[in-house]
């Protein structure tokens, strides 16, 4: 039988997708945040990020962001080769500032969401999503 590296990872119990790709520096993520906020101070909280603690499939991870009164929410996957995932803009006719999508994660990492509020203030939150394949839960 033929085992690819990826398949083999699951056999013993579990294994993480080892980062074989270049990992972006935190500075890069900070730069992206600064670009979005113009360097303004951010409150922790005020923006909600729903993501699984452990991804069932790192190739398609469901996430949801929302923030009352936000005009835009930026999502970054800090451990992906290219961290920007999406920036959702909400116009005045949007019923609520909420968006759901699925994203691809190169490995275990923090997802960051930054919301821009109508008054020009910003809010930030983050959550660690673990990417692991296969296991021995019993």
């Amino acid at each position, binding site marked *: 039988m033929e085992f690819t590296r990826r398949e083999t990872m699951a*056999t013993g*119990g*579990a294994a993480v997708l080892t980062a074989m790709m270049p990992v972006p520096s935190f500075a890069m993520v900070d730069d992206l945040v600064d670009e979005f906020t113009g360097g303004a101070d951010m409150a922790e909280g005020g923006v909600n990020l729903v993501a699984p603690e452990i991804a*069932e499939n790192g190739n398609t991870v469901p996430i949801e962001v929302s923030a009352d009164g936000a005009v835009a929410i930026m999502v970054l996957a800090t451990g992906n080769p290219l961290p920007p995932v999406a920036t959702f803009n909400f116009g005045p006719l949007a019923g609520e500032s909420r968006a759901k999508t699925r994203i691809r994660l190169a490995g275990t990492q923090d997802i960051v969401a930054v919301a821009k509020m109508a008054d020009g203030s910003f809010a930030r939150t983050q959550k*660690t999503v673990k990417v*692991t394949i*296969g*296991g021995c*839960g*019993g």
Partner: protein
Amino acid sequence: MISRRDFLQVGMAASAVVGASGFGNWAKLAARQKLTQDKLLEFGKFGNVSLIHITDIHAQLKPIYFREPEVNIGVGPNRGLVPHITGSDFRKAYGLVDGSPSAYALTHDDFASLAREYGKVGGLDRVATVVNAIRSDRPDAILLDGGDTWHGSYTCYHTKGQDMVNVMNALKPDAMTFHWEFTLGQERLREMVGKLPFGALGQNIFDAEWDEPSEEFEDYRFFERGGVRIAVIGQAFPYMPIANPGWMFPDFSFGIRDNRMREIVGEVREQGADLVVALSHNGFDVDKRMAGNVEGIDVMLSGHTHDAIPEPVVVGNTVIVASGSNGKFVSRIDLDVQNGQMKGFRHKLIPIFSDVIEPDPEMTALIDMQRAPYLDKMKEVVGRTESTLYRRGNFNGTWDDLICGALIDERDADIALSPGVRWGPSLIPGDDITREDIWNVTSMTYGKAYRVEMSGEFLKVVLEDVADNIFNPNPYYQQGGDMVRVGGMGYSIDVSKPQGERISDMTLLKSGEVIDPARNYVVAGWASVNENTEGPQIWDVVENHVRKLGTVEVTPNRNVKVSGT
């Protein structure tokens, strides 16, 4: 036998008001009493609602031995807290007398000799007697099954879980939740769930395609008992497609989903629930955290991690009850609910000593009927053991050492890997090893034994990843099994370190050489979560090995060195 011994009444513990701490007056209740069925069932009816909890039966219809873990390490906020205390620390915490029936039921030391004295545990015909006795005391008691019921034996495998459905239906549960049931495959599961005469619950069971709550499972079910409206919310095992083969149930998604649990608790309260019960397969540490995160759950019935805890653990206003595994225990929880509030509770973890509790004859007949077509095959003696064979514990158990030995010998491998599952009864020295015994520790729907080459570097990645599933300080990132069991290789583990830094000193035992990251090693294992895994079934591999050995003797495994506890 058991009646000659002094018995510390197991479970007789907590009769406390809400908010009282977990460690109660166990020691005070210790008394020199003869162990009888009446004593085991003695309770003192309390309040106006009774819950009965059983979980993680793993298809054990008949009495078995089950050795509780010697090593069960807690990390982060759970370091040193129940259920992460074992042996003498556990006995001290609950005031259990060494050598007593309670010590035998709840701790590992001196297991073989106590097993000879006190006999086997479990058996669903004994469980039926206990359930019937509680129902005669409180006819409308609610029986809840925490899942991992339709998996784990020769008959369960061959009937695709039908034996368990037939027997459990006779026990008449009011609801259940799920984990290993999904490994029967989604079509078989749908067929069975569609016919269940009780609630199939899981607020966190989602439709994978639409990422919406599955319509095939109820979030909760309401019961009205003595004027009290009780909502039972299901919480299935959150990490099924990760810990088990997701390709067997591709339509479903899970996850912990605190947010949704919060919404559902609000919804049932709005509908007038006086008492909110979560029937959970999260595992104990996850349940503790969830009870802290989600307000409004009165009682959390905890399964998955197979912990038998003699007193409830109270988190905020939530009472968490853990009821062991393999049919070894049944919990009874009586509650006083007044004006939509839980005013107090009384709890007992009832050990099912199979020589003390009379089997229910109707249930015995029903169980024997399920087993009859397979009995000759199951009872065939394959070998004999001179050692206690057990599995539970964070690292290798003797059953796993035997299985790893079988993989190395029969599959001509350097290294063997065996999954760190927590199911599987024990055998004591002098016992025959029957085919049924081997199936009890190996049977599953993805049991093929693979043989592959892995680099030393990759082996480390595997160990690091599994270790993080157990020792991540945040329980929401744990999957609830034990460490992958390793044969042919030793290693050191510092459980306090982060992922990638826990494992060191990997050594190939047959040569004594350090594992070379760049070299490939032949690795044999089983229970791969990948589709199209090829190889013989693990139970055949083990049977061949045991047959060749004739008599099994497993020496203590000192090849895993643990630190940072």
